[in-house]
């Protein structure tokens, strides 16, 4: 069973998620603050960390930065009530494998956790929309690796369908490709999102602070 560590400063929310996930994943620990989370994650070495974006003392970003490359086998799924693009993008660029909102249903959350545990990326429709928006225009300042600065037409199609609310399985059916291929595309997009040096990414995220 997937071993999950919960990080959220609201005890009530942790309790709710714990109850919802009960039986379907193994919740090995939880923390309410970044420092506590870092030591807890180091001690329990979970498969997936469910990480709240907004917390006191630096938020989810502080946890990701403190963990650094220590735990290569631990993947992070960001969880947020916020739609603020700059927060989400910051976490993705710091290494989170995906982002979901707190209104997600229990079944979808379990699905997202399993996907992240398998090394795949998790895009909410909104995050897919963000990505499309960010990579929309041609880069004005090309970076070292031009491949990182734009999406392939296929990746763009996958992102569009994700933004339209399609599941990976539905996308596979729509595009006549395998689910595995859809996952590969999503992972590639995530990598570009993390590594692209397009300066617009940051500015764009700041511009859309109020989405």
């Amino acid at each position, binding site marked *: 069973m997937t071993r999950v560590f919960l990080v959220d400063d609201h005890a009530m929310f942790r309790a709710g998620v714990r109850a919802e996930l009960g039986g379907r994943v193994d919740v090995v620990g939880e923390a309410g603050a970044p420092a506590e989370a870092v030591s807890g994650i180091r001690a329990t070495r979970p498969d997936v960390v469910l990480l709240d974006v907004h917390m006191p003392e630096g938020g989810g970003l502080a946890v990701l930065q403190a963990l650094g490359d220590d735990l290569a086998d631990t993947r992070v799924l960001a969880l947020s009530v916020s739609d603020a693009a700059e927060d989400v993008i910051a976490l993705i660029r710091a290494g989170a494998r995906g982002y979901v909102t707190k209104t997600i249903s229990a079944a979808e959350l379990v699905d997202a956790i399993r996907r992240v545990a398998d090394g795949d990326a998790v895009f909410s*429709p*909104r995050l897919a*929309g963000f990505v*499309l928006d960010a990579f*929309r225009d041609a880069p004005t300042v090309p970076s070292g690796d031009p491949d990182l600065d734009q999406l392939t037409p296929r990746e763009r199609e996958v992102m*569009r369908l994700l*933004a*339209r*609310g399609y599941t990976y399985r539905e996308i596979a059916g729509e595009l006549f490709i395998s689910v595995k291929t859809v996952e590969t595309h999503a992972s590639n997009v995530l990598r570009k999102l993390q590594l692209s040096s397009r300066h617009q990414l940051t500015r764009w995220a700041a511009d859309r602070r*109020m989405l």
Partner: protein
Amino acid sequence: MPGRAQGRDNDRVSAPAAVRAAPPRASRRPERGLLGGVAAGIAAHLGIPVRTVRIAFALLVLAGGLGAALYGAYWIVLPVAPDSPPLPSRRRVKDAAAVVLAVMAVGALAQATPSGALFVPIVLGCVGGALIWRQASDPQRDRLRRLSRTSLLASGSDREGQLRLAAGAALVIAGAVLVLARANITAVRDGIVALVVSAGGLALLTGPWWMRLVSQLSEERAERIRSQERAELAAHLHDSVLQTLALIQRNAELPREVARLARGQERELRTLLYGTRTAGDSVADDLRAAAAEVEDAYAVSVDVVVVGDAPSDPGLGALVAAAREAMVNAAKHSGAGEISVYAEAEEDAVTAFVRDRGIGFDPDTAAGDRQGVRGSIIGRMDRHGGTARIVSGAGRGTEIELRMPR
């Protein structure tokens, strides 16, 4: 506002001083003194014999009565040492008598000395300043002290302090020159100049206090605005959030209604926190507004994702209206609790997708209510030069694609 800037400067200057331990403060020691204990207090503060201080005062009294004025001023300004025992009432009577005597002596000296015309304003100024000092509350006093410190130890950056120091020095010199040259000046001019000098001295003396008043006023105004904002927020929270929470508790057994209430409230709070987005400016705002209406009216959740944006125009208005109709249809007929709306503004066209995972229908055999799809969605898009495409099937949900060229 200069008063404000001044206040900030001084706050910065005083910040390290506040951290330092408070320096020992001079105080009166009535129990040790002959009159008010001023000499005893000063002697204790400076670490010199009481006798020296008393002799200094006596000499100053001889020099035009200045000693008496100084003594009186110190009496008013210096606080009684905290460890001084309370005085018996007999002693108080004696003190009062001494004060009356001193005032009379000063008056007599003023008559007798040649510079008497100057002397009275100076004494009045001293007493006035001392009174202001005495009236000021502790933080105000700290501030006045701070102001005088900045003027004396004015650094190159503190222009105002330097200016004030220069003006004060000029006045002092003017006064001295006046006294020295008195013999050659007519009494009238002398009186006018004396008045100007003491007015200037008074201005310098009370300047910080006025500035304080001005900055206090603006602080108060800012505080009032803040508290108004707080009250507004509290009123808003009460009217909307608390009401919604109450409604949620009463509808706890109706999950759809609870979700609707919560989403509506969430939207409202976001608008409050992150600024108002009103419909009518852009296709993205219009779509979000339409989605919000549908959410509220039909107790479903509508997720809107928009990539890019375009200013509103009649064609795009039709697109938004058609999308709204599609959302309403999905909310009313599909049975799905969630509707996804995705719109993308491109160079040549705006595309919108409205999707649900509900029961679906066969667009070709749609009848009755579903005729709304033909008129309000397909027909409307056609009339404005756009296209609508419906992908649906029993059990597969429905997706309506709308495309409007720009």
